């Protein structure tokens, strides 16, 4: 047993972190929120060049195999840099198409996903599809059927403007029956896992930004980071994140092994990481004071993401119920 990322896994995450750090993700996210997709597509291509999307696609379709652990570690970095767009939905769609056992759609979409040529959104359970206006395909799973939407409704203003929500519309049924249901369950598990990982990364970024802020911001002639009320809030933020992290790793391992406990482990990870990310956002906002409540500084991008990400692909209530079901 060695419950630590391997040197290669750490290196991959570091590379991604470095690339994203140099990519000006906040500006990309703001453009994305405004409906301007070019910078986002460029970032998507750079992500694909690291091999990210190939991690969700089996080798026979040009990927490197479904690698949940590597995916989870990567999505921590995506969350850290507040990457916009539907990368979680795209990898979940890939998992869905592969599992469905319908060669047609898989042959069309999986090689393109692996290569970063396709932005694919997936809608299962909720009324809205994420980034339907930017996606090359939107798959909609509903009551044992799957269809590819033909259009979408008006983009609704959303709590996190970088998450563009619209109703998927139309499209004939592509497949139905138990195969759809089981592939959908698998896809939701992947989406939930990588969303949990994003929450963790988002929380880490918020904590780091807040620590550096409270070290340099002074009031009453001292750094506000020397006040105990401030320290304790940050200590609790760190505790939340530190104990969510092993849950995310273990969930990824369980998915990778197809363990019977995977559903429960993923749900547990999502609760812990979602709540830790949200708590980190509240702490960041509080300790930045009015500056945190101001749109202009990029911190606002992270703060606004926390709550919608916590609820995406399984609210805490849904996930807790899943944990209790055993």
């Amino acid at each position, binding site marked *: 047993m060695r419950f630590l990322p391997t040197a290669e896994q750490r290196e991959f995450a570091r590379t991604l972190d470095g690339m994203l750090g140099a990519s000006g993700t906040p500006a990309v996210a703001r453009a994305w929120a405004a409906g301007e997709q070019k910078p986002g597509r460029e970032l998507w291509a750079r992500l694909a060049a690291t091999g990210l999307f190939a991690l969700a696609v089996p080798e026979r379709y040009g990927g490197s195999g479904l690698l949940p652990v590597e995916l989870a570690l990567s999505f921590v970095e995506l969350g850290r840099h507040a990457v916009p767009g539907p990368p979680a939905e795209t990898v979940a769609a890939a998992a869905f198409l592969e599992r469905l056992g319908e060669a047609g759609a898989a042959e069309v979409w999986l090689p393109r996903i692996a290569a970063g040529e396709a932005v694919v959104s997936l809608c299962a359970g909720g009324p809205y599809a994420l980034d339907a206006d930017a996606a090359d395909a939107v798959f909609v799973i509903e009551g044992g059927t799957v269809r590819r939407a033909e259009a979408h409704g008006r983009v609704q203003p959303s709590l996190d403007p970088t998450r563009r929500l619209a109703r998927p519309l139309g499209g004939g049924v592509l497949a139905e029956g138990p195969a759809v249901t089981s592939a959908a369950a698998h896809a939701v598990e992947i989406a939930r896992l990588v969303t949990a990982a994003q929450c963790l990364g988002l929380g880490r970024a918020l904590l780091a930004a807040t620590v550096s802020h409270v070290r340099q911001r002074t009031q009453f002639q001292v750094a506000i980071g*020397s006040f105990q009320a401030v320290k304790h809030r940050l200590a609790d933020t760190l505790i939340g994140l530190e104990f969510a992290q092993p849950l995310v790793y*273990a969930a990824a391992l369980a998915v990778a092994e197809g363990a019977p406990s995977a559903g429960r482990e993923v749900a547990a990870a999502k609760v812990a990481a979602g709540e830790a990310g949200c708590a980190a956002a509240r702490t960041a906002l509080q300790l930045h004071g009015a500056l945190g409540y101001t749109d202009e500084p990029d911190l606002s991008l992270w703060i606004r993401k926390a709550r919608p990400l916590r609820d995406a692909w399984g609210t805490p209530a849904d996930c*807790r119920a899943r944990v209790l079901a055993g």
Partner: protein
Amino acid sequence: MDLDIAPADEAFRAEARDWLAAHVPAVPLPSLETAEGFAAHREWERQLAADRWSVVSWPREHGGRDASLLRWLLFEEEYYAAGAPGRVGQNGIHLLAPTLFEHGTDEQRARVLGPMARGEAVWAQAWSEPESGSDLASLRSTAVRTDGGWLLNGQKTWSSRAAFADRAFGLFRSDPDAARPHQGLSYLMFPLDAPGVTVRPLGRLDGKPAFAELFLDDVFVPDADLIGAPGQGWRVAMSTAGNERGLTLRSPGRFTAAAGRLAALWHEMGGTAGTALGERVADALIGARAYQLFGYAQVSRLGAGGAVGAESSLTKVFWSELDLALHETALDLLGPYGALADGADEAPAHGSWADGYTFSLAGPIYAGTNEIQRDLIAERLLGLPKGRR
């Protein structure tokens, strides 16, 4: 990255499980905070030791099995899952022993560890003083040099199980002129029945009488019972404190077992998901699993050459709050039965929750209060400036 347990480690786990299944008393022992329970638990320590299960991670020469940290974690999971008794020897085993392994002499290890492992000598921790709790370094009890040893004077308090224990280890001021309060302290061991020691039992919040205060009046301690160098007591003691907060004392198995029992209770009582209580049960399961996995990660880091440092403060706050939340949830689930303490003959099985609850109330206080731990986390792990303390 993997969580795979090697076959040899699984075999070790299975051996522990089998032994526990054959030996764990069918009827729970009386509380180890009472005279009767203390004796029964001492006998249990002896049984554990007879088959080398009392200190599995120690070297064989001192009664252990040379088990890796991972095996120790697996053993603890089995131990608590089997509902085995609490460990009356824990202060010695988890606090003094690691200190002796690190700072003691061969002679001290040879003399102290065997009887400790067999429950023949049960140790109490004598750190706190009436005026020195969180600010432990302000302590005033003294150790003064004398022929062949030291004379101890002063008062120690809140010493767990000292009312019935045999020996104690503690910090004393040996150089009153040292520049800083943390300097000039020495770490010494002494018998609780030595001339000059008065032990006065103190009732705890649950009324159990094993807590005690100690009055020391010219108690002689030979040089052989000084741990580390004179004046180095703080450094020696702090290596122990990491153990108290971190891995050893609060092993994950305790919480995974308790969370499992809580979930069973919830199912038994026909609980429904989506209710506030159901959510709290789920959170207990999630928290216990997180703590267990954090333990595996910690063991992996140690195996890769890391050390337990300030992160023991993370675990301290986490397990103490988890323990409290878990027991509060159990009492809420039990409704009117939640008010029955152990020993009540109605719904006797429920009394153990009340007992666990009362004990969990102390978690955020002992082993360094959670306020102090949060300061340490902020300063040592997050690098925030030191404030007034």
